């Protein structure tokens, strides 16, 4: 039944990072890109607002400013050597995308257009700077399409709708992966010298999320089972503006274009929390502000949402108050036509899902689980590093949201996710090919797929006392409520206990679909196993970190504590038990200081 293949490099996942890795690795090595979705279905396509690069196309900007903003955004937990590298590479990365045909919006003189975004500043004046290169509000969609198209042009091999279920490791080296072909149910053993994980995040463990169904932490969970640590998993980003209840993302670009947040009393509240950049503060800051407004009774009609307002009259009123001008110094004046042209998808989402027209009505929003800052530890070349000394694991790479380089530290700056996957996807691809071209294939054990088979059998033969859908809902509720925007010891420990209870109950699920062809029930059950494993690591890392930093905000430890906690968390799975360790943060130019917006 099992089929065998051999490639020098295997890329797992076909979002932006996976496609970029595939594109670069296949230049010199026999490469395959494996993905559980058709590549164009990947979650990169949901990214909206832009990709950050100090192109300086509209006003002065520098990679050093981008670096500082990213370090500050990370609440000083990001590794500064990697951040410098990413911000310097950013300019060429964006230009390369343009050379590949990406349809960026244009300035009147034909250059790539840029817009302001949260936390992007001119380091001299402290004012917002236009750094986010954009293609309307579907920048991620255009990156995904463009990279996939370039892969087709360059004849990259794809195994579409293949779910990777396991990593094969031999003699402490990479030997390949095991995958199931969804359309036949057949297992495939894919022998490889190098494997790149680009499997995305795991936001689906939270009740309200902007993330796709596919975001179940597959890569992180697979490697955790093999003794590879996960880094900084307590840091998860809640995006301030998700559509109320549904969690669908409303880009920060709305605020970049002048949109403001309004509470239930009709007041603009961000100036209270971030006097300088106001509605364009970092995401963690804005999410906490919204949460505080709601908690203090200033949600709309006493409910847990506030409004985001992009109606031209509101925008222009506040722009005048803030002294916002166009680049030529003229008065900032947004028109309804510009809103429609610059934010077409946002308008569409609001009309379809809320029956609200943002040009004439305010949008009800609440913070939504959005981005995984932590993940599989790597260095700036995408090499997976497995201990506090950053020792690389031979032949293993990770890039994009599943990886933790760490360039995002405690809180990711808007537009840096797309940048991350283009830059580190590329380097992971180059490095993996370079490695594969000098390494030998490890000999595969006869039973490479036996662990996978046992895992799937267990899911088919459980007692059936438990239901996947129900367990998954219980997980999402407890993680959102107790390991969410604001955290405390008691809630996190009870969440950890609950996750462990769910893990125990998970052994009693059974899959009713006994077929081979597109057994999505089996796949969903397997994904739940990953979500539970990842959630346990998150709850444990979060309860362990006794300070507040970036997206990790504790009511019981409200301050950042650089003396004790300026360090990365590492968590290993040692025979089913989680162990905690640490590694130092790399600091080059920017010593930690108080973070004020």
């Amino acid at each position, binding site marked *: 039944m099992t089929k065998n293949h051999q490639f020098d490099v295997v890329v797992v996942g076909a979002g932006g990072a996976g496609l970029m890795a595939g594109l670069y690795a296949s230049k010199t090595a026999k490469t395959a890109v494996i993905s559980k979705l058709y590549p164009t279905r990947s979650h990169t396509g949901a990214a909206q607002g832009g990709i950050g690069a100090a192109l300086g196309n509209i006003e002065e900007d520098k990679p050093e400013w981008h670096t500082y903003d990213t370090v500050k955004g990370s609440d000083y937990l990001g590794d500064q050597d990697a951040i410098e590298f990413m911000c310097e590479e950013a300019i060429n990365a964006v230009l390369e995308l343009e050379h590949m*045909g990406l*349809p*960026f919006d244009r300035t009147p003189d*034909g250059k790539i257009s840029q817009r302001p975004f949260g936390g992007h500043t001119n380091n001299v004046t402290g004012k917002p700077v236009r750094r986010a290169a954009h293609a309307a509000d*579907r920048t991620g969609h*255009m990156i995904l399409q463009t990279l996939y198209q370039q892969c087709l042009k360059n004849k990259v091999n794809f195994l579409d709708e293949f779910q990777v279920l396991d990593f094969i490791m031999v003699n402490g080296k990479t030997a390949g992966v095991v995958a199931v072909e969804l359309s036949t149910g057949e297992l495939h053993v894919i022998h490889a010298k190098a494997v790149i994980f680009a499997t995305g995040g795991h936001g689906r463990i939270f009740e309200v999320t902007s993330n796709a169904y596919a975001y179940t932490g597959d890569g992180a969970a697979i490697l955790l089972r093999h003794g590879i640590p996960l880094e900084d998993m307590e840091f998860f980003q809640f995006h301030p503006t998700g559509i109320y209840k549904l969690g*669908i993302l409303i880009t920060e670009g709305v605020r970049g274009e002048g949109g403001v947040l309004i509470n239930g009393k009709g007041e603009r509240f961000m100036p209270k929390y971030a006097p300088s950049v106001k509605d364009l503060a970092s995401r963690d800051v804005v999410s906490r502000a919204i949460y505080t407004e709601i908690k203090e009774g200033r949600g709309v009609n006493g409910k847990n949402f506030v409004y985001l307002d992009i109606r031209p009259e509101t925008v222009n009123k506040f722009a005048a108050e803030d002294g916002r001008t166009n680049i030529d110094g003229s008065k900032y004046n947004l028109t309804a036509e510009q809103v429609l042209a610059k934010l077409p998808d946002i308008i569409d989402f609001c009309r379809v899902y809320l029956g609200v027209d943002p040009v004439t009505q305010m949008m009800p929003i609440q913070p939504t689980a959005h981005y995984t800052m932590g993940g599989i530890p790597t260095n700036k070349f995408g090499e997976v590093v497995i201990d506090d000394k950053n020792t690389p694991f031979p032949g293993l790479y990770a890039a994009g949201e599943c990886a933790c380089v760490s360039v995002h530290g405690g809180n990711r700056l808007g537009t840096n996710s797309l940048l991350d996957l283009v830059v580190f996807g590329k380097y992971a691809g180059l490095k993996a090919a370079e490695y594969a071209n000098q390494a030998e294939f490890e000999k595969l054990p006869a039973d490479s797929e036996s662990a996978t088979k046992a895992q799937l059998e267990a899911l088919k033969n459980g007692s059936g006392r438990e239901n996947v859908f129900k367990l998954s809902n219980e997980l999402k509720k407890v993680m959102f409520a107790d390991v969410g925007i604001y955290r405390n010891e008691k809630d996190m420990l009870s969440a950890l206990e609950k996750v462990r209870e769910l893990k125990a109950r998970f052994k009693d699920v059974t899959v009713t679909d006994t077929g081979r062809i597109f057994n999505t*029930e089996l796949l969903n059950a397997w994904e739940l196993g990953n979500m539970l494993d990842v959630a346990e690591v998150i709850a444990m890392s979060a309860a362990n970190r006794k300070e507040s930093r970036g997206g990790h905000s504790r009511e019981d430890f409200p301050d950042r504590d650089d003396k004790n906690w300026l360090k990365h968390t590492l968590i290993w799975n040692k025979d089913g038990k989680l162990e905690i360790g640490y590694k130092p943060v790399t600091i080059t130019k920017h010593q930690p200081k108080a973070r004020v917006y």
Partner: protein
Amino acid sequence: MEITIKIFRYNPEKDKRGHYEVYHVEGDENDRVLDILEYIKGNHDGTLSFRRSCAHGVCGSDAIRINGRNMLACKTLVRDVGEKITVEPVLGLKIVKDLIVDMEPFFDNYKHVLPYFINNSPLPEDGRERLQSPEDRARFDETTKCILCACCTTSCPSYWANGNYYGPASIVTAHRFIFDSRDEAAAERLQILSETDGIARCHTAYNCTEACPREIKITKVIGEVKMAMVTGKLD
């Protein structure tokens, strides 16, 4: 409210042919049809199979036929279609299981039209971007929105009649490059579309435009490509 949903079912490993099953579920008028399918899969019948990922109309996974019309399950709310809902796989592609169809022929057609940027001229000497005016950029904006969901192609009577027809989605993709001022392969693409299974098979039936969840005016787009073929001009 109670929602009555009739779903096409087909299990290739058991059934000789498809049949319908009816489910009654509690729902809200703001529920997505996808939410209802998920609920049924979670609580009534785990074997119900369909594709989905983003759940908000941007990934193109879940094109299905709802009350006889092609839509994305995640972008269609109960309030749009009423509490009596019939759900079936899209037409014109082989049914693999329940609502899942074989997408390979669709992507093969896509690959036919050189769906990638082609410009073999040297890059600007300073290594910066190729310039493009906002007007030139706007010329093909509409067709950059396509998410390759196949709602259009599988609603097209010409495609049903002849699966070799490249179909509206491929023409939309071709348009995105043909009218991009930076691209240099418009003539080749127009040549490809003038083949027997190309644009000539379109009889301007408008089904595709009505089906597109991204509101791309496909028939107009096809008209522009036809015009370019006739006149050899790209404006």
